[in-house]
């Protein structure tokens, strides 16, 4: 992302822009007709971009001899017509919410933390260690401990690039990418050598091979599913999908971050430093310190990315633990325009696309890669569309002021 896009990304987010006027703080829509028009435009932007991406996807489907309308119908029917699909979408969105928030908060201050991937792995390792090593703790102590351990892991892995950035001017993109590789190898070694669970009983009569994994996480550190909660609303998710309370935590975290960014001096400083570090500095804001802190916060959130899979699904950390969430988080943050609630929508969209891809692969015979292409086009077109709209609004506002 070049810096021409950052002022736009830093401006008011689409769904609920900052609301200084009295009416805006109470109501959802601004009172001013022009501001309302801009808001509508901003909300419409991602949808138009999604339509455009779907159109490109259609061309590809036509090229491989499929009827795009049928495929899209199948995609929607499969994703929303089945309760297990809905649950799957929510489950898949959960880690992406954390990954997206971790990226978004760093992008907010113009730091491109590409290392959410590595930070989440280290977070998962620490969580796993605390999860299996402490025995006999009550859940209300053990589970928070595991969550804190995950955050500490993320912070640890974010600290070095943050320090190098602020003190030595090392570009965070380079250092975090490199540390992603280091994290991957380190985790492999920790799982395969240091903490390998040697007590596994292998197959019948010694046949088969053991899993390369750490010991099982104690039941007291496993996170409960949300099935009971949803049952109150008459929604009965199947037991084989593990929608869990981290979804709720992620949404709550998004709300907290939204408040921090727009309503606290800390968030004010993040925005000021992002958009003009020189002026922020002259005004007495310690820009470097603010960057450092925000980087660590990003790392802490990144540490939480793996928890949904670790604590709700697998119950152990093995070498096949899901990868790539950190990178998906970058796309989710872009889609969400670095707005916490936008991130949630972006994560849900990704959840839907991945579930829908399975559907069309099985039932329409369209390779899942086509959906991946749509995903890519969608990210590109949304980023471009955001930029066009924010430039348009900037020009309009300038006109109005003159």
């Amino acid at each position, binding site marked *: 992302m070049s810096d021409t896009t950052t*002022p736009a990304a*830093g*401006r008011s987010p689409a769904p609920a822009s900052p609301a200084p*006027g009295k009416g805006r703080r109470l109501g959802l829509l601004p009172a001013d007709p022009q501001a309302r028009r801009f808001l509508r435009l901003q909300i419409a932007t991602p949808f138009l971009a999604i339509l455009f991406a779907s159109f490109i996807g259609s061309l590809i489907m036509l090229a491989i001899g499929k009827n795009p309308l049928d495929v899209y119908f199948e995609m929607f029917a499969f994703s929303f017509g089945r309760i297990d699909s809905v649950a799957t979408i929510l489950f898949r969105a959960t880690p992406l919410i954390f990954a997206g928030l971790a990226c978004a908060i760093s992008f907010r201050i113009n730091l491109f933390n590409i290392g959410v991937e590595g930070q989440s792995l280290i977070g998962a390792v620490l969580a796993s260690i605390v999860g299996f090593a402490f025995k006999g703790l009550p859940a209300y102590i053990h589970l928070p401990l595991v969550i804190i351990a995950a955050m500490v892991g993320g912070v640890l892995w974010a600290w070095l690039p943050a320090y190098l950035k602020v003190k030595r001017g090392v570009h965070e993109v380079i250092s975090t990418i490199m540390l992603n590789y280091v994290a991957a190898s380190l985790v492999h070694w920790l799982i395969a050598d240091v903490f390998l669970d040697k007590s596994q009983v292998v197959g019948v009569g010694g046949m088969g091979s053991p899993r390369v994994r750490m010991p099982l996480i104690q039941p007291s550190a496993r996170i409960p599913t949300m099935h009971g909660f949803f049952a109150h609303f008459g929604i009965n998710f199947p037991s084989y999908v593990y929608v869990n309370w981290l979804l709720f935590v992620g949404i709550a975290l998004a709300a907290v971050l939204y408040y921090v960014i727009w309503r*606290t001096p800390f968030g004010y400083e993040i925005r000021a430093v992002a958009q003009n570090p*020189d*002026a922020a500095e*002259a005004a007495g804001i310690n820009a470097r310190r603010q960057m450092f802190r925000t980087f660590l916060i990003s790392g802490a959130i990144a540490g939480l990315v793996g928890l949904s899979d670790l604590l709700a699904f697998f119950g152990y950390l093995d070498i096949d633990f899901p990868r790539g969430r950190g990178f998906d988080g970058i796309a989710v943050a872009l889609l969400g325009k670095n707005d916490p609630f936008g991130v949630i929508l972006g994560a849900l969209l990704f959840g839907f696309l991945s579930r829908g891809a399975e559907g069309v692969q099985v039932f329409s015979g369209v390779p899942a890669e086509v959906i991946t292409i749509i995903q890519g086009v969608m990210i590109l077109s949304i980023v471009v569309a955001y930029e066009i709209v924010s430039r348009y609004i900037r020009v309009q506002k300038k006109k109005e*002021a003159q």
Partner: protein
Amino acid sequence: MTPSTGAEIVKLEGITKRFPGVVANDRVDLTVNAGEIHAIVGENGAGKSTLMKILYGLYRPDAGSIYLRGTKQSIDGPGRAVALGIGMVHQHFMLIPAFTVTENIILGHEPNRAILNLKQVGTHIGELCRRYGFTLDPGACVATLSVGEQQRVEILKVLYRGADVLILDEPTAVLVPQEVAELFNNLRALKAAGKTIIFISHKLDEVLEIADRVSVLRQGRMVGTVEAARTDKRALAEMMVGRPVLFNLAKTDVAPGDVLLDVEGLTVPGRGARPVVNAASFKVRAGEVYGIAGVEGNGQTELIEAIMGLRKPSGGTVRLQGQPVTGLTPGELRRHGLAFIPEDRHKRGLVLPMTIWENLILGFHRDPGFSRPSGLNLNSIMSHANEMKKRFDIRLSRLDNPVLALSGGNQQKVILAREFSHDPKVIIASQPSRGLDIGATEFVHQQILEAQGAGKAVLLVSADLEEVMSLANRIGVVYNGEIVAELAADQVTPQELGLYMTGSKRQSREGVPA
């Protein structure tokens, strides 16, 4: 008609140019006679530069026609303008420092031969210099030239291309008085040789000195053309602004009080071995405006940044109200009562994409009045912003528009409102009226004098000598990072200041008592 004017050479008729949201030129008519010096004056944004860029082919007009020597022309680019004998000297020089004067002049118009005979070209340029009385060595490297000499290279460039009509865009903005005098001599020589000069400026004294006729633009419209000999500064200013303008600011006579800002031996390292600020010492008292005059780039920026805690000095001390504050952060200095109007408001003063109300609390956002443990106190912030809007007459449509939507004058008012509203003791104002129109400049000057009258210590840095001389009580002149002279503002002439500013003269001992 004055004797110097001949037949009309350039005629613009009904020129209109629209930019998104603005009409930069609105049916502008202009006639320039051959062999005259024709000044075009107007405030920032009045459309002077746009009009000249249209004549030079950089912009196409939306309506209107251009006549040259009586023939209608369509000028679709600078190349066409040059072919027609029009040349433009831009405000910002476009020279290659490592090249010699000759190489720079022929750049883009090299003689079309296999072997470049620089000596021959140099002789030709030397002739041009002699003809118009330019003191310039064609073989000198541009990097070694002074600003005034570089400007001469730019003018020669235009002459070399055979221009009869020369457009000069704010040529005096970068010059010290002596250089201005030399430029004017050159222009008179050109005029005597039959060249036509269009001179863009907003400095009325200079315009009255050099021009034969003056055309005034206001908000994109041509107000009128007058003969310089038959008008005066006051009348021109009124034409420019559309209302009478005060020229003599009322300085309140306050007996200077305690020393509030004391800078002693402040040294700031530069990139090379020589420091950019070299042992600068001065004192600013309560109720006093201390002006720092100097050609830009002589260490003023670094000096102010060092005082503000934005740059590390290698030696010396800064005291605020007697307390040593060297090395404190900008935030801590603010809490010691230091206010700062930066020279570049877009770089250091404002966060342009953020809203007006957010910019009004920048740096004070953690004050108990604006923030509570639970977050920003929007109610009190908004009422403060509304109060500032009234008190400083900030013209805005909505407080939650980004500050970039404001005009330069109103942006500066946002900074003044922010910096002046927290009862500072010492105010550092760096180029406070740069790029502002007359109205906003007046306002800024009034605010500075009000602060001085209220017993604050003001450190004023300005490249505009007139500004320094009319506001300051004492003036320190910087040259090459050193304060070479300290003078009482009411006992010094611009010419004398110019000598110090160019390093031709320096005081041997301490200046006027603080």
